[in-house]
């Protein structure tokens, strides 16, 4: 009897010690806490969240449940949950453009997270602009998104191709400085009989199409002489989308659609990546995923030959104030922060807010996010200084030349003097829906670029009036980093 009691006591003590040790390993201890995160369907972003979740679980003993929705369903699901004050999600991952719609329902980032080494490591374009709304931080970037240019180094360095190109166009074959050069290159490599086409971009409605069009137009409309006037006049909130700069951008976007693989009109960004990695196209524009996927020998036929550069620009930019073209002494690139990179925020109604912000800290830490950035398919592109500075990290997937060009293009774009910010406005989907519809008609040749953009401008002005011009103007100025208008 005594022996049995002693045995039980010893066992209980041992179990208590083990439990104590386990809890000691949880720092901070969130055992028993399960966080639910809304995400788009994986692998993009959802797999990055799972990567962060594994690390957070190891550290805190808490659990993370990533709930995935198709891209087109994510916004409605989050809005429905937020507006109903429903605590379904402890965290929501979302597009920066949706932030104005979500702000009333999100909690502010704890002040402690808004300083320190990790905070300063986030690129200023995100930390000071995209993560900020009316002077407050409601979300954290978990991905950096800027459109860059990708090309096949093997084709561009081939002496025969170089000579033939120079003979035809009168200048050297190299990553393009202007959109005209971009189209020349696409035209030069358009060889359907050899299974090679000029370029690949997204043209499909609902397939991230309008960001590619915005990238073309940014070169002609993001004027440093009148900042923040790319989409709307920041003084009047009049739509600018039908000005000559935008029309020129659309004409070139349509021209690019004819220099791609058959039925490129059905391409979303996924098909663009497949075309690039499959060696079907000579060049392309898009997010950083393209370079990472194309460099991966498991997914790509052109691994080791992937070159990158900043998007082409222009030396003539439309001035929305003077309504004239401004001439610049040299070509001015206007890298477009298309989409702007996924954000993660914590709803006010969440029951585990402290744990949720702690998860954000782990997910976006330089170590975890750095690993996600070099893992193909996570959808995470560089957004920290440490992401682009650490060449050793990138040597796991890129050759030295590829890494140098890729990281150079990313860093130069994000830190570009004339970087163009994406539109962020309340009622974002109402504004972009009409763009998608009219782009579809213009790409199909059912309407002219000018007529399509006139329709968009008319609808944008109507929406602005319906939502309240003064309110929208204040929001637009905030999104463009301009001071409030008196």
């Amino acid at each position: 009897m005594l022996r049995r009691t002693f045995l039980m006591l010893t066992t209980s003590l041992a179990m208590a010690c083990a439990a104590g040790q386990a809890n000691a390993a949880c720092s901070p201890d969130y055992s028993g806490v399960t966080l639910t995160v809304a995400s788009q369907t994986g692998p993009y972003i959802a797999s990055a969240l799972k990567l962060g979740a594994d690390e957070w679980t190891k550290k805190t003993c808490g659990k993370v449940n990533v709930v995935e929705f198709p891209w087109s369903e994510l916004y409605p699901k989050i809005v429905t949950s937020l507006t109903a004050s429903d605590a379904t999600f402890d965290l929501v991952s979302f597009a920066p453009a949706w932030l104005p719609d979500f702000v009333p329902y999100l909690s502010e980032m704890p002040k402690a997270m808004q300083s320190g080494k990790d905070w300063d490591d986030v690129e200023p374009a995100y930390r000071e602009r995209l993560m900020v709304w009316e002077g407050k931080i409601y979300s954290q970037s978990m991905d950096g998104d800027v459109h860059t240019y990708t090309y096949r180094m093997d084709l561009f360095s081939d002496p025969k191709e170089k000579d033939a190109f120079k003979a035809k166009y009168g200048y050297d074959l190299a990553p393009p400085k202007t959109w005209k050069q971009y189209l020349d290159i696409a035209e030069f490599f358009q060889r359907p009989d050899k299974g090679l086409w000029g370029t690949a971009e997204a043209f499909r409605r609902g397939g991230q199409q309008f960001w590619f069009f915005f990238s073309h137009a940014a070169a002609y409309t993001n004027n440093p002489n009148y900042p923040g006037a790319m989409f709307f006049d920041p003084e009047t909130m009049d739509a600018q989308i039908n000005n000559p700069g935008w029309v020129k951008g659309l004409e070139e976007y349509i021209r690019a659609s004819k220099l791609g693989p058959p039925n490129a009109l059905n391409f979303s960004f996924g098909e663009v990546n497949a075309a690039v990695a499959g060696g079907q196209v000579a060049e392309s524009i898009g997010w950083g995923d393209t370079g990472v996927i194309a460099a991966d020998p498991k997914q790509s036929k052109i691994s080791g030959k992937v070159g990158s550069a900043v998007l082409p620009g222009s030396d003539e930019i439309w001035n929305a104030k003077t309504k004239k073209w401004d001439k610049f002494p040299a070509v001015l690139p206007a890298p477009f922060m298309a989409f702007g990179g996924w954000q993660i925020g914590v709803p006010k109604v969440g029951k585990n807010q402290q744990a949720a912000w702690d998860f954000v800290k782990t997910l976006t830490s330089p170590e975890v996010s750095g690993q996600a950035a070099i893992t193909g398919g996570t959808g995470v592109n560089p957004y920290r200084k440490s992401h682009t500075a650490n060449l050793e990290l990138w040597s796991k997937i890129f050759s030295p030349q590829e890494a140098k060009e890729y990281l150079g293009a990313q860093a130069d774009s994000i830190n570009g003097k004339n970087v163009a910010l994406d539109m962020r406005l309340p009622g974002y989907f109402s504004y972009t829906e009409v763009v998608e519809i009219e782009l579809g008609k213009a790409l199909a040749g059912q309407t002219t670029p000018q007529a399509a953009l006139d329709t968009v401008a008319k609808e944008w002005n109507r929406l602005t009036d319906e939502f309240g011009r003064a309110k929208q103007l204040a929001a637009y100025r905030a999104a463009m980093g301009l001071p409030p208008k008196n």
Partner: protein
Amino acid sequence: MMRNDPIKHVFIWPAVLVVLAISIFPLIYSFTTSFLSYRLIPPIPPRVVWFGNYATLLQEPRFWNAIVTTTLIAFIAVGLQYVIGFGVALALNARIPGERLFRVALLLPMLLAPVAVALVARMIFNPTMGPLNQFLSMFGLANLPFLTNGHWALACIIAVEIWQWTPFIILMMLAGLQTLPEDVYEAAELENASAWQQFWGITFPMMLPISAAVVFIRLIESYKIMDTVFVMTGGGPGVDTETLTLFAYQEGFKKFNLGYTSALSFLFLIAITIIGVTYLALLRPHLEKRR
């Protein structure tokens, strides 16, 4: 005596309340909302606009385009489903060898989820990787713009609808054919009536009531098409394949324009009611002749 028994209220009122709660109240709420300018995103306080939403919709070319597109899909798809379905049902009813196998195989498409069918169709019609264009290129034909040209995209959606829902017509028509009396056909054969005369003089008229019901059900269902279009084309290119339900979805769940969407739903209800009533009115003389 029983009529005045108060116990009847115990049985009736719960049912009345359930019907009110789950059917009538949402309908009234939705009808009321249709007279408001009411947006969740960006949040704008509700404002009474009376028939403003209806007037805007009736002047909206996109609404009329959606009506035309939905009507085209519904009428062409259901028409072809009926013709093919009736034909296949007649063949199966003729006790051909392997009839049971055919019956099961032909019913399979109906059992699949429309989203899955649309995803498979999207891959088949894929411009570069799809087997259909690869097959056509074997004969030296150019890649066809299946989902990127408005007319082709509409034809693809109709083809998928026919493939998926013809089995429903087969099932119903076969059930109807199996109830037809044999003696009428025996009498017709004694009179040396040809197969075509037997079909046109006996089978078709006797199958008219069930045909009317089946077509009516399919027509109403086809007007509600959403998932197939959403997955295959997203309503594009432009709005060439946008149906009424997809238009309502975009307004309701993308733009959260609740007043406008409610008005759209009621206009949809009115359109369906008009089509249904007209259809039944046109068929009534023929159906009454059968009684």
